[in-house]
């Protein structure tokens, strides 16, 4: 299956990438998506995960066509 990956803010800078389309096996979790998209880097402890623009967590299962986003703590307002 295919998922769209997005990185934001400092994470995007650190990884040098704002997103990718990732081919991954069924039953993959957000953490699996991270590993593949980041080229095997450890996920920083404070990273937030959103699936289809809803907050989720790294253990959530992803589905074909999902948009999986990783970003640092938010600092708006």
């Amino acid at each position, binding site marked *: 299956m295919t998922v769209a990956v*997005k990185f*934001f*803010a*400092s994470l995007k*800078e650190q990884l040098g990438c704002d997103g990718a389309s990732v081919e991954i096996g069924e039953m993959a979790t957000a953490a699996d998506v991270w590993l593949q998209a980041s080229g095997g880097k450890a996920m920083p402890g404070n990273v937030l995960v*959103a699936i289809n*623009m*809803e*907050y989720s967590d790294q253990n959530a299962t992803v589905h074909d066509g999902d948009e999986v*986003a990783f*970003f*640092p*703590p*938010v*600092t*708006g*307002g």
Partner: protein
Amino acid sequence: MKIEVRVAPLNPWHEVADYEQAQTTLHGMAGAAAVFVGTMRELNEGDAVSAMTLEHYPGMTEKHLEKICAAAAQRWSLLDTLIIHRVGELRPADPIVLVAAWSAHRKDAFEACRYIMEDLKSNAPFWKKEQLPSGHRWVEKNTAGY
């Protein structure tokens, strides 16, 4: 209800005035309006900040802000809410965010406005990068609101 994320400069008081005037259902019904405006400071954590870049997650940001307003409307008796948030390049003294809540009575307006602002700061996907004399710095976390 209006939610806007925009690059264009923000004059928050004109926005509130225009919005309120256009919402004729508020007229004579809203006894209370509580408004918060967050503005860029020229100093943060002891460092001079000459400019700021605000990044967001298009789509999720608006969705999350709508969710906050819906939650506030569940919890308090509200007539209307308005959120405008800037993204892109900002300078000190530029308004960043406007949150407004209208209600029949002040308790609901005050509490909803603060609730929306706190949730926005805690959860809405925006990120600030500051320009310091020494280079760029991503803001790592927001200050506590309570």
